[in-house]
C-alpha cells in the first residue's frame, strides 16, 4: 500500500514538474519569417480569466470571440488568412496576467484582447509596451490602463469600454438627478483598483453636484462581513449607499444592510452585472440600480445576443463578451485597412480610428488617451428578481 502511494506520488510529482516546465515554455522559439508565414493563420491572443472568481465572464468572453472568429474564417478570413485565437488563463491575477502576456508575446500574436480587470491590465501592459505588443482591455475601466502616471499615452495599449471617471460620474449624476438623494455613503473594496477608482470619481462628482458623503467605508478583498461598516453607515443617516465592487461583495453587503435594518437605496457599477448578485443578495437587491457598459436588452446588440444564445444555449454574461468582440473588430478593421500585421503600423492606425463600426455602435478612439470617445452607458435595475433596463446615458 505504502509503496503504491509512493509510486503514485512520484508520478504526480513528475507530472507537476513537466507541467510547470511546459508553462514556462521557451518563448524564443521562432515561427519563421514574415514571408514564409504569410499563408499561416493570423494569431490573436486572448488574456482571460478561465478559472477563479471571474471565470464566469471570462468563459463567456472566450465563447463570444470563438463564435466571431468562426464567422470571419467562414467568410474567407482577413487578408486571405484565417484567424486563430490563442487564449491563456490569467485567473484574474496580476502575476498570472504578466506571465500570460509574456507567453502570448512569445507566441507572436498580432494583438492581445483582454484582460478584463484593470489591475491585471496595468500589470500586463508593463511587459506588452516594452515588446511593442498591442493590448486591448475589455472591461478595464481604470484610467491608468492606457496612460502612464505622467499622463502620457501608452502607444500600444487600448480599451473598448468607458473609463471609471465617466462611470463614477454617471452614477453620481444619476443619484443626484434621477434618484434625488443628497446624502450618500460609500462602501468600497480597498484591495481593488477598480473599486477605489470608481468610489473616488463618484465622491468628487457627487460633492461637486451639491451632495454630501456622510460615510466613507472600506473593506479588504475576500472579506465577507461588512456589518460593522454598515452599522456606521446606518448611523450616519445615508439615503443612498454606493457599492462599487464585484457582484459577490455587493450582494452580501445589501443582504447584511437589510439585516441591520438599513433602509436606503443601493447603487453600483458594472461589476454588479451577474445574476449571482440577485442570488446572493436575495430580496435585498430588489430596486437596486447599477451603471453598466451594455445591457442584454439593449436593442443595438439584440441580434448578436440571440445568435450567441442559439449557439451556446445560454445568454452571454454581460458586459465582457460584447467588449471583447469590439476589440476583435478593431483589430480586424486595422489589419484590413493597413494591409499589415506589424504592431507599430496597427497601433498608429488604431490611435486615430474614427467611426469604426463595432458591435456596440461606432467607435472613435481618443489619440491622447486611447479611450473610446462617447461610449454609451446604461442604468439597470433589479425588478422582480431580474435585471431590467432602466435608462440609458448616451455619451455626453
Amino acid at each position, binding site marked *: 500500500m505504502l509503496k503504491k502511494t509512493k509510486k503514485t506520488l512520484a508520478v504526480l510529482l513528475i507530472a507537476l514538474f513537466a507541467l510547470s516546465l511546459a508553462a514556462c515554455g521557451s518563448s524564443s522559439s521562432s515561427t519563421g519569417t514574415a514571408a514564409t508565414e504569410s499563408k499561416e493563420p493570423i494569431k490573436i491572443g486572448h488574456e482571460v480569466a478561465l478559472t477563479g472568481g471571474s471565470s464566469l465572464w471570462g468563459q463567456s468572453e472566450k465563447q463570444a470571440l470563438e463564435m466571431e472568429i468562426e464567422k470571419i474564417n467562414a467568410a474567407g478570413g482577413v487578408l486571405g488568412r484565417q484567424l486563430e485565437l490563442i487564449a491563456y488563463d490569467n485567473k484574474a491575477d496580476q502575476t498570472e496576467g504578466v506571465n500570460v502576456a509574456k507567453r502570448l508575446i512569445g507566441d507572436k500574436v498580432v494583438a492581445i484582447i483582454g484582460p478584463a480587470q484593470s489591475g491585471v491590465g496595468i500589470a500586463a501592459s508593463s511587459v506588452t509596451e516594452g515588446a511593442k505588443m498591442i493590448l486591448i482591455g475589455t472591461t478595464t475601466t481604470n484610467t491608468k490602463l492606457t496612460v502612464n502616471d505622467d499622463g502620457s499615452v501608452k502607444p500600444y495599449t487600448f480599451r473598448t469600454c468607458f473609463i471609471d471617471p465617466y462611470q463614477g460620474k454617471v452614477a453620481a449624476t444619476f443619484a443626484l438627478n434621477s434618484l434625488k438623494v443628497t446624502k450618500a455613503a460609500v462602501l468600497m473594496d480597498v484591495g481593488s483598483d477598480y473599486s477605489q477608482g470608481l468610489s473616488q470619481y463618484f465622491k468628487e462628482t457627487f460633492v461637486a453636484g451639491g451632495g454630501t458623503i456622510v460615510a466613507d467605508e472600506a473593506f*479588504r478583498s475576500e472579506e465577507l462581513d461588512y456589518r460593522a*461598516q454598515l452599522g456606521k453607515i446606518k448611523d450616519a443617516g445615508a439615503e443612498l449607499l454606493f457599492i462599487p465592487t464585484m457582484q459577490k461583495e455587493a450582494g452580501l453587503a445589501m443582504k447584511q444592510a437589510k*439585516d441591520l435594518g438599513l433602509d436606503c437605496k443601493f447603487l453600483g457599477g458594472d461589476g454588479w452585472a451577474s445574476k449571482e448578485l440577485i442570488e*446572493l443578495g436575495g430580496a435585498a437587491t430588489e430596486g437596486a440600480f447599477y451603471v453598466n457598459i451594455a445591457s442584454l436588452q439593449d436593442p443595438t446588440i439584440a441580434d448578436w445576443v440571440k445568435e450567441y444564445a442559439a449557439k451556446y444555449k445560454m445568454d452571454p454574461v454581460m458586459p465582457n463578451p460584447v467588449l471583447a468582440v469590439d476589440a476583435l473588430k478593431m483589430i480586424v478593421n486595422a489589419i484590413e485597412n493597413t494591409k499589415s500585421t506589424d504592431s507599430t503600423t496597427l497601433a498608429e492606425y488604431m490611435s486615430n480610428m474614427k467611426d469604426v463600426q463595432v458591435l456596440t455602435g461606432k467607435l472613435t478612439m481618443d489619440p491622447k488617451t486611447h479611450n473610446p470617445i462617447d461610449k454609451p452607458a446604461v442604468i439597470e435595475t433589479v425588478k422582480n428578481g431580474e435585471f431590467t433596463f432602466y435608462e440609458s446615458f448616451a455619451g455626453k
Partner: protein
Amino acid sequence: MQMLMQTIVTGLAVGGIYALMAVGYSLIFSILNFSNFAYGGIIMLGSYMGFYALTLLHVPFAAALALSMLGAAALSFLNERIAYSSLRKRHAPSLYFMISAMGTSIFLENMVYATLGSSYNAYPEIFGQSSISLFGSTIGKLDLFAIIFSLIAIYIMNYFIQHTRTGIAIRAASYDSEVSQINGVNLSAVIGLVFILAGLLAGVSGVFLGMKYMAYPTMGWITNKAYISAVIGGLGSLPGAVVGGLILGVLESLVSVYVSSLLRDVFSFTFLIVLLLVMPSGLFGKYLEEKV
C-alpha cells in the same frame, strides 16, 4: 452607546464563526502539533454538501446540517489517513505535515473549480430576512442561532474531551503520544477520532458560513482568521480558541467603526503581533515549540 452595543453584537456574531473553526484547528494542533491548513478545504466542502443537500435533495435544514457534518467528518478522516498517516509513521517533522496540508488545501480548492465551477452558491433563505432586537441593537436570527449552536457544539466537544474515557485518551496522547501508546492507547484510532471530531465541527462551520455568506471554492480563505484566533487563544487550547475567536471578531468590528475600516487589518494584526510578543504562547497556550 447604542452604536457601541451594536458593534459588539456584530463582532460577537462574526467571532462566533471564527471560534467554531478555530476549535477545529486547535483540536488537531493539540494532538499532532502542526497547523492543518487543509481544514479550510474541508469546511468549504462541508458547505457545498449542505448546499446540495438543501437544493438538490430538498431535505429539511436539520438533515442537511447532519449530512454535511457526517460528510465533512468522513473527508477529514480520509485527509488524515491519506495525507498525514504515512508521514506520522515515519516520524516526519511537523514542517512536512504542513506542506502536505497546504498541498491538500490547494488540491481541494482546484478540484472544486474543475468539477463544480467557480460560481457563488447562495443557500436558500432558511430564517428569512428577519432580525430581532437585543438590548437596543439588531441581530439577524441566523446569527443568533449560529452563535448559540456554535457554543453548544463547542461545549459538547469540550465535555467529551474532558470527561469521557476516549477524551482522556485523546488528552493523554496530546501530552505525550509515545508514553500514551506504551500505556495502551491506540494512537492511530485516537488521531482518526480527533480528525472526525474536527470534521464534524467543519461541517457545522461550513453550513453556517454558507447560510451567512455563500458557498464558493475559495471560501476556505476565511479560515485564516480562524487560524489567527487559535493563535491568539493559544494553539491547542479549546477554550483559548473560543476566546480568541470572539476577541478577534469584536476587535475587528470595533476598529472598523471607531478607528477606520480601511485600517482594520493593520490594527488587528498589530494587536496580534504585540500580544504574541508579550505572551508568546497565546492566552491559554501550553506549547511553545514548533508553533508556525
